[in-house]
């Protein structure tokens, strides 16, 4: 019981405290790749601290949905972070829900965020909400099919079982079904976290933005919660990708040495994946909104191929 409690607190603290670092790492690396000096790695922490201490302007047209949204978003994202295995194959709250619960908790947060975007009545909020719901909807089948392919191999939608099944097999990730599913999920990751080429997190040009348009009316602590949730969501999805496909080094026991090694490995893998996202972001231009469905269709085809190769070569193949 105590052990369970410690692991919940530990993972919650890790998701809360490390997620801004990953966001900061990405920003710093991107600046370097664009030969800018850019902000420091710790800039997101400074931003959050500053926003939390600021005052807020609440639109006079908004209802109680507007203040509720940051809390719903924050708690659903954090809870999703507690359902996935991070440094240990056993996720802290694994029994409360598997990968379906993770996907649907994030969807619940998005549902309220989109309502929050519409609540103030500005056209930008509506524009952002409309695009966010559209893109997440067409990303959904690719996401689910890829997840299903992995779940079928593991025989469970429970993420801890999926990670354990993957740990047990060396060179598992070289199987065609795994590589295809990983490619599909990588595209979905880019779409879901609002990176180039789907959305540009750095823009405030109204015709190109999606996520930023939705949260345009938020300020101060509410904005801090939303930014923080976005960082956590990115970390949750990256962790999902890492530990389902490359779970090597997940600690099997709770010994201090084993935990330290797996925490370091986990951090290294997160950094590597974040760098890959940044490389994609730097090397590509943003797609026109109506080209995004084509990209996500590619993801769906990749995951369908992953499924079919599972059928052809067997789930362990």
């Amino acid at each position, binding site marked *: 019981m105590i052990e369970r409690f410690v692991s919940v607190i530990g993972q919650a603290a890790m998701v809360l405290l490390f997620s801004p670092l990953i966001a900061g790492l990405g920003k710093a690396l991107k600046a370097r790749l664009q030969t800018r000096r850019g902000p420091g790695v710790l800039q997101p922490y400074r931003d959050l601290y500053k926003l939390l201490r600021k005052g807020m302007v609440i639109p006079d047209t908004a209802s109680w949905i507007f203040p509720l949204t940051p809390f719903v978003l924050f708690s659903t994202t954090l809870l999703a972070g507690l359902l996935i295995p991070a440094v240990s194959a056993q996720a802290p709250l694994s029994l409360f829900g598997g990968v379906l619960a993770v996907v649907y908790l994030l969807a619940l947060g998005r549902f309220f965020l989109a309502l929050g975007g519409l609540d103030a009545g500005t056209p930008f909020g509506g524009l952002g909400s409309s695009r966010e719901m559209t893109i997440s909807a*067409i990303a959904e089948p690719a996401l689910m099919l890829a997840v299903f392919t992995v779940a079928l191999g593991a025989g469970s939608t429970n993420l801890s079982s999926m990670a354990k099944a993957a740990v047990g097999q060396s060179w598992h990730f070289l199987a065609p079904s795994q590589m295809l599913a990983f490619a599909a999920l990588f595209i979905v990751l880019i779409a879901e976290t609002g990176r180039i080429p789907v959305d540009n997190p750095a823009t405030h040009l109204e015709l190109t933005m999606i996520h930023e348009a939705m949260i345009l009316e938020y300020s101060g*602590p509410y904005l801090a919660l939303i930014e923080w949730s976005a960082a956590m969501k990115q970390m949750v999805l990256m962790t999902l990708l890492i530990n389902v496909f490359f779970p090597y080094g997940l600690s099997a026991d709770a010994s201090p040495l084993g935990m330290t090694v797996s925490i370091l490995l986990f951090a290294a893998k997160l950094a590597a994946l974040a760098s890959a996202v940044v490389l994609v972001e730097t090397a590509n231009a943003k797609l026109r909104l109506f080209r995004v469905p084509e990209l996500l269709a590619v993801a769906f085809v990749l995951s369908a191929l992953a499924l079919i190769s599972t059928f052809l070569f067997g789930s362990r193949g």
Partner: protein
Amino acid sequence: MWPLRELYSAGLGAFALGIAGGIAAHFGLRSAQRISSLFSVFALIGSLLEGAAAVGGLRSGGAILWAVPSGVPYLTYVVRLDALSSFFVLTLALVGAGVAVYSAGYGKHGAAAKNPALFGALLNLLLAAITLVFTAGDVMFFLIAWEAMVAAAYFLVVTDHEQAESRNGGMLYILMSRAGTGMLFVGFLLLAAPAGSTDFRALHFTGQHLPGGFGSLAFLLLFLGFGVKAGIIPLHIWLPAAHPVAPSNISALMSGIMIKAGIYGMARVFFDFYGALPVWAGMIVLLVGVISALLGVLYALMEHDLKRLLAYHSIENIGIILMGFGAAMLFRSYGHPDLAALALIAGLFHTLNHAIFKSLLFLGAGSVLHATHTRNMEEMGGLIRRMPATALYFLIGAVAISGLPPLNGFVSEWLTYQALLGGFGATTEIARVAFPIAGALLALTAALAAACFVKAFGIAFLALPRSASAAQARETAPAMRAGMAMLALCCVLLGLGATWFLPVFDPITNQAFGIAAGHRLVSGNGAILSAGSAASGTVSTLMLAVTLVALSALPLIIWLIWGRRGRSVTGPTWDCGLPGLTSENEYTATAFSKPLRMIFSVLFRPRREIQAEYEISPYYPKAIHFESEIEPTFEKNVYEPLKDGILRVARRVRWIQAGSLHAYLAYIFVTLILLLLFAVRG
């Protein structure tokens, strides 16, 4: 001992009192207006009593209540409350009770106010007829109850018969229903003839033993016949025409429970009358489910009429239910009763859940319609401030229908996913690939549904009012709010308490597959839902909800530590420097769904027309006229040619109806001779 028979007949008696009293009041009393809410009380009492009877039926595993011979050949009044019937009667009771309470406040409004007593009588008649449909244990008796239901619903749809839209919707509904009943008639005859009996008990597991192609033919006819009522695509076109024009409490009953009569019929046929069906049968049901779900939600997204939008969502959810049913049929064909039981539970649970949240949403739409006098979402807006209670209940329904945790829609969709995933291991044929793909399309459907309800709630309830009538909207009567509150509470309880509800399905799966599967889905300390060994996975909506509430305290704490310095002020929304934000700046429902209209333009074939008037330069338009419409694919490409064909044939054969009595007598004579010959030969 549960007094099954007494409760059941008392419930029907309450409905009968409502019918008789309503008719008497309509013709006898001029002041029927004053006692109109009395008929809702009868409906409420009847629903509650039937609900109690259904609980008894589920506990005892079911019983024959009556078997009274009528004196007419092949017609016996068999009333049976077995597990499956009890489950559907329970669904009816929950929906009926909520709608009855709501109706007590609603009767004074709209078209129903013109003949409140007659309206009350028809409401009771509809509930009584559906109860009989669910409990009839004999083919002929079932069809009689079925037709009574169709007729009662027709009269209720055309309540507002001064509007052409109502008359047309009602006509389309009755035409399609007649076609459906025709198919049911033939299907049941094919099924009952070899069994030599029309009693449902005699038909148990007989379908697959029919000679030759008759088994398949009967299956197809019954599937299509019930499919018309359920609203499967492509037989759905009456549904978005008839549901929105009915008074809203009737829309709630129709979408909530009446289309479930089609689902009940399918469950009865697929899992009671037929044993293991061939694989293609299950595949057809699964495919129709996927298509109905996906197209239903896509058409819903394009609607700006709040009630039509909800009607299309009924088609979507019928599709999700049929995905569960189709999977269950396939698993039985492949010889996996445990998986089949899981899939059947998923389908049936979604039937109940959809009944509750859809009637809740229709009641909410009714309140909005009453307050704003429009069904057009583009003329609503800002209602959350003027109708806070309605907005809250509608939001609960919207979260539930979008399949989001921790409400009831999530639980049944989760079960459907688990069943579909388990299907991959059920066979080694290529057909196994169909299950995860169906799961992925279910995910797409659910995500689109979420988008649609962000649109529905966001455009109708949030931001600024988009018309004068929306600005003057007022909260609805207490009884209407109470009815919605009851259904919203059901959404929450069935979501959080799903594990305590699941054992209800034990007798049903036991009857169909010989496995009491419901309680096996509960693991741990009773709060955790587990998909079982075949398709592993766990979820606990209760624990998720508790943790969510606990975690949302965290930002409050963080805020209290650091954030107290800042001051929160309310200010005007930024409007790009224009003089004040007005409703004309707001994003519209049309704009919201535009990206999806573009992405799925192959299906929608959208057409738009923009006319602008300029005065000085093209940058300063004086007036803009925008028109956008999508092509009604099925109406145009399937039903138009069909209608033309029927009319052409009718013109050809018109000469038979010559108007001469002698000719008609000759027809009768010839028919008689032919029948006699047939009888002698046979």
